[in-house]
């Protein structure tokens, strides 16, 4: 008994604790910076009262400044809207294409799959230059649609392939049973296969959403009005002034920009993890 408990500590609790600390420490660091009054920032490294890990006079000043002096809530909403829309589009495309590539037999299937994948390999660093041309031709400049339509270029390939992977792990028999029961191919796809693939859909969605949420260069190039900007671009262009960073506000922006998403994710993660255990294989 004692031996078992000892084992559980070594193989489970300690590694998990290390993971938690390692993953969350930078996050904690951002939080403490956001609450730290400025004078502590300018304290010497060797100062006796240097307390990097906590602060004795936590302040909300940075959050107030962020909300009062920038259009942060607006950026948050823009980012959210753009991320949701582009993720929606990408999942829709990816779901259908992934199913077709995983399940259906048709000429050129392999080539098409590879083709979709290959677009993901296109290095984005300089892609924004020709892309700016397209945005201009479609007259999308300085609208959220410039981003909603360009983000899928790197999201669709990923969603397609990840979902394809999940579809392949679902036994064909399930679908065949449904078809014997009279379901159409399309109906079987919608009502049998897609629900089973929900964990995959969610993880593709999380990935896509996060990539859109983080994207910087397209958002920088294609949007120009201050009130249309996204969180990363807005924060960087307002809170880094020449050679001075507004550290507290930068980190406050990072926190406020990620906590709502974390809450939404916590719901999804739990949903797909508990709801489907053991329902597929076997």
């Amino acid at each position, binding site marked *: 008994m004692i031996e078992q408990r000892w084992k559980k500590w070594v193989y489970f609790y300690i590694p998990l604790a290390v993971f938690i600390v390692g993953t969350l420490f*930078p996050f904690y660091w951002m939080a403490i910076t956001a609450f730290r009054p400025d004078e502590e920032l300018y304290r010497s490294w060797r100062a006796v009262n240097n307390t990097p890990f906590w602060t004795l006079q936590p302040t909300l000043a940075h959050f107030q400044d962020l909300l009062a002096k920038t259009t942060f809530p607006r950026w948050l909403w823009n980012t959210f809207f753009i991320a949701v829309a582009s993720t*929606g589009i990408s999942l829709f495309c990816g779901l259908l*294409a992934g*199913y*077709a*590539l995983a399940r259906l037999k048709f000429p050129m299937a392999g080539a098409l799959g590879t083709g979709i994948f290959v677009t993901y390999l296109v*290095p984005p660093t300089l892609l924004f230059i020709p892309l700016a041309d397209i945005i201009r031709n479609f007259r999308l400049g300085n609208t959220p649609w410039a981003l909603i339509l360009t983000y899928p270029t790197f999201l669709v390939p990923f969603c397609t392939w990840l979902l394809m992977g999940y579809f392949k792990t679902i036994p064909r028999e399930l679908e065949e049973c449904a078809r014997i029961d009279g379901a159409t191919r399309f109906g079987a796809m*919608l009502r049998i296969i897609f629900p089973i693939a929900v964990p995959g859909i969610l993880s593709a969605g999380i990935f896509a959403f996060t990539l859109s949420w983080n994207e910087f260069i397209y958002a920088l190039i294609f949007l120009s009005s201050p009130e249309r900007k996204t969180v990363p671009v807005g924060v960087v262009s307002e809170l880094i002034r020449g050679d001075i960073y507004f550290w507290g506000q930068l980190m406050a922006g990072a926190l406020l920009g990620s906590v709502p998403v*974390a809450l939404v994710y*916590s719901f999804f993660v739990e949903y797909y993890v508990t709801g489907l255990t053991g329902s597929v294989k076997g």
Partner: protein
Amino acid sequence: MANHVLEDAGSAAQLEVALPHPATSKPARFERFLENERFLAFILLAPAVILLSVFIAYPFVMGVWLSLSSTSVGIPGQFVGIRNFVKAWNDSIFQQTLRNTFVYTFWATLFKLTLGMWLALLLNRHFRGKRIVRASMLLPFIIPTVLSTFAWRWMFDPTFSVLNWVLYRGGFIMTKLPFLSDGAWALWCAIIVNTWRGMPFFAITLLAGLQTINPDLHEAASLDGAGAWHRFWHVTWPLLKPVTIVVVVFSIIQTFSDFQLIYVLTGGGPANSTHLLATYAYQLGVAAGLLGEGAAISLFMFPVLLVVVWIQLRYLRRLEGV
């Protein structure tokens, strides 16, 4: 957002279900079309293909053209063949950049995979506070890269590093460690930051994969007296393989063409020791205006990534064959 799509799909489904079944009416003909695999495939693939060809085909062709031309910003170039590639290949900064990129990608991906897998296995067990732990593990992935990298840069700050402070106070070091100011250290720091950022996604995706594995299989293996490692290797791993491969390949692509992280953390310095292909291409293309050379350097990624994808495809097909 997934729900949103599912709802869309759901309403389509109802519509379809509501159709009368006898094969006489018009809609039924459409339904019969959908029974045709080729036609269905065509319909299903259309949105993705249209979107990608509108928004990526032209930029891609343009990118290839740029790499083969002497274009610089505002000056239309002429076709110069592979001269840009040759020039880059002989450039000592490029050579260093290429080496950095391989080192960076290899180690970061390896760390992300092993740690991500480990974390997924841990999170797959039942424990108190499971829900909150699982959600919080995703945090590094959610914070905009630009901002979290600023935080990391501060933690590695040559003067104020909190890590140095801890080690110093703990009596482990006498002088500050040169986290970002020594070339070799700086590259490893970048690898650590990348791992920190990317690992949660590995963990959560693999966790989703683990959920689809029937616990009975494990139980059976346990009854057979298999150890934990044995069970992982012979039961879990084979079933996780397809998903793992997809995630690894995408991670390789992402890491290989990483830009933001390096741009913010070191700008490629000190003395180019952390430059990656993407940051160097950006520097040449955007800061120096040499669009042709910049495009050539970013396209150096392409063949490498193609090889990776090819290996993956072969491997996936073999798995299916088995």
